[in-house]
């Protein structure tokens, strides 16, 4: 067991899984609250926090450094909100002003102190999960990657917060007004959520870099949101999709010899594509089915109206046959048969030899359709 955990692939997968888990837990609520782009600001602003924490404490890891750097992430979002409240600029412009400034200052400070900080500005942006085994810590007799230990602590904090404050978080995300009427302090809960997101981003940036963390934070929850309307199911899908991306991304990265963290983040897109195709409400398949059902219903209506308008006319023998449907309504023979079958099944039409006529139910429905049509026609042209 310990030998397995200490192999390099196991260390990488474990670290990735912890990033995916934390990302899915926090991201679900961020996406529901419409704060996806706040995670963009946080993930950039923590770079300044990491440098400043290093200036003050001299450490690049440990609870002090993580906490200090996380404050910078929180400050970026709260600062942008304060700036937007002055009404001198819009909310999105404020966000787009604050985090680049903080990130720029962070990068500049790294540039100027590169020799002492041992922090490469490319690593900040890109991370390299493939090297997590270089720095390890011994815990319970196991030699674990230092990044995984930090991430594990943060993941436990996140899971604890979400379990303890489940109903408060749920209400604050869906109905902040009601939540504050109940005395749940949705503002405070939102701030804690942002603070935890910052801390997780700090813990994750060594492994996957600041921007790739965003993929784990947003893409799996959006996948969950497309596939389900229940919060717990959304969360479960997000966690599952995140974990799958870690495994699949690792396998593909090894196979093609590309960045492991990058490939893991790209793999989160696979789940999203599946959701876009298969989502029960908004997916492409669902849209196709809906469109087909509508089309079939429309064709049946056309058939009923056709039969009704020719029911007592001399050309009835010619018009109320399958051949006429094909010829006059421009349907293919298969389409015409499908419409006839559905009409017969639903008891709206009946067949006498080659002739079709409306049943009582069919006549009633045709009458209703035509009256609705006439009502629309009767309206003056500008209100139609």
């Amino acid at each position, binding site marked *: 067991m310990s030998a397995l955990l200490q192999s390099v692939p196991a260390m990488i997968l474990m670290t990735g899984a912890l990033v995916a888990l934390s990302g899915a837990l926090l991201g679900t609520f961020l996406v529901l609250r419409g704060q996806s782009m706040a995670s963009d600001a946080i993930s950039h602003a923590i770079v300044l926090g990491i440098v400043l924490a290093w200036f003050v404490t001299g450490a690049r890891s440990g609870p002090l450094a993580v906490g200090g750097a996380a404050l910078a992430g929180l400050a970026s979002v709260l600062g942008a909100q304060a700036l937007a409240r002055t009404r001198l600029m819009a909310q999105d412009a404020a966000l787009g002003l604050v985090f680049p*400034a903080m990130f720029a200052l962070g990068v500049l400070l790294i540039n100027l102190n590169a020799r002492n900080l041992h922090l490469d500005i490319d690593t900040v942006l890109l991370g390299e999960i493939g090297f997590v085994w270089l720095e390890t810590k011994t815990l319970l007799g196991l030699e674990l990657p230092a990044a995984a230990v930090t991430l594990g602590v943060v993941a436990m904090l996140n899971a604890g917060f979400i379990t303890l404050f489940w109903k408060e978080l749920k209400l604050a995300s869906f109905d902040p007004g009601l939540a504050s009427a109940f005395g749940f302090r949705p503002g405070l809960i939102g701030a804690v959520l942002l603070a935890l997101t910052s801390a997780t981003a700090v813990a994750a940036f060594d492994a996957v870099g600041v921007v790739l963390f965003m993929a784990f934070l947003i893409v799996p929850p959006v996948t969950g949101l497309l596939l389900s309307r229940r919060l717990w199911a959304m969360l479960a899908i997000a966690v599952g999709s995140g974990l799958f991306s870690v495994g699949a991304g690792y396998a593909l990265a090894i196979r093609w010899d590309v960045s492991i963290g990058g490939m893991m983040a790209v793999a989160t897109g696979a789940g999203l594509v599946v959701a876009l195709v298969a989502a029960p409400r908004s997916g492409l398949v669902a849209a196709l089915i809906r469109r087909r059902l509508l089309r079939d219903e429309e064709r049946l209506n056309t058939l009923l109206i056709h039969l009704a308008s020719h029911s007592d006319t001399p050309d009835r023998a010619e018009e109320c046959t399958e051949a006429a449907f094909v010829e006059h309504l421009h349907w293919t023979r298969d389409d015409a048969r499908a419409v006839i079958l559905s009409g017969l099944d639903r008891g709206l039409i009946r067949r006498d030899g080659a002739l079709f006529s409306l049943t009582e139910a069919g006549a009633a429905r045709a009458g209703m359709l035509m009256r609705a049509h006439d009502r629309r026609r009767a309206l003056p042209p500008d209100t139609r």
Partner: protein
Amino acid sequence: MSFDISHTLVTVAMAAALIGALAGVLGSFLVLRGQSLLGDVISHAALPGVVGGFLIAGGRSFAAILLGALAAGALAGLSVQGLRRVAGVKPDAALGVVLSLFFAAGVVLYSLAQARPGAAGVEVFLYGQAASVLRTDLPLMAGVALAVLAVIAALWKEFQFVSFDPQGARAAGLPVDALETALSVLVAIAIVLGLALAGVVLMVAMLIAPAVAARQWVDRLAPMVILAALFGAGSGVVGAALSAMGDGVATGPVMVLAATVVVALSLVLAPGRGALAQALARVTARRRLQRRQVLDALRGLSVEHGNPGHRSEEAMIDTYLGASARPVLERLEGEGLIRRDVHGPDRRPHWALTARGQQAAEGRE
């Protein structure tokens, strides 16, 4: 040697001024339309295009990298729209999804490119490196920038209408969707052109900061666009020059910090909207109100006593104002509207309206 440095500096400064001005112009439209973060998404999403262009061209070809970045940026913009309109994803989530997935794809391609010779040519696009702009790139840059500005000048009225009142523009028969797409494409071009200087991560600030700063000073579109262009060009030149002098300092961060300083100064100093002007206006308004309150109190007391020159005790006026009235009284005395009167056994200060003060109190000043 010194000739070389100044030679490079001139090239860099010209490029930075050009990019800063262009970003300022297009950023104005972006900020006014509430699409600031779309700029962030397009610039991050350009990374796979930059690296893809590098990989396909097999080296640092400015044109290939620009084309790749433009294609990736346009695809990202379309993806955001698709996610929102077709799949019904919330706008901010759509932005986040596209940004992170495109950037991740860029990171994967980047790891491929690092194995190739000359990969350093790609690296500069992350944070921008002024020195990487060659004199031979300038004509292309200037040509594209002029073309973009010409399009904006030609479609100025239409862009203005669409930015402020899209529904009105649609009702007036303008092709709103086409114009908005055109504007987005121009923004993407400006971003892509600036990547070598500002880098994919920070380019968004060069779009937003000059526009937000300019907005504080003026209320009309044309002056705002021109001012944003000036602010952008200024921050660009300062940033590029400072980073070119420092050893190994990336250009993007310095440019962005310069632009941020401009914003901060504008937020404080701008007449009308700035923090200083606002504070001054608050003080003036409070003083005007207190002056009115004191005059009204004195007049009320004199009417009560049937004596226009009635002397009111200062403590009484304090009570009316709810605070010490002394500074207000002294200002009114300076204006000659009231006079101080201490006499008799009561040594406490008393105040009475002068003839002019009576007129002022009755609102006839």
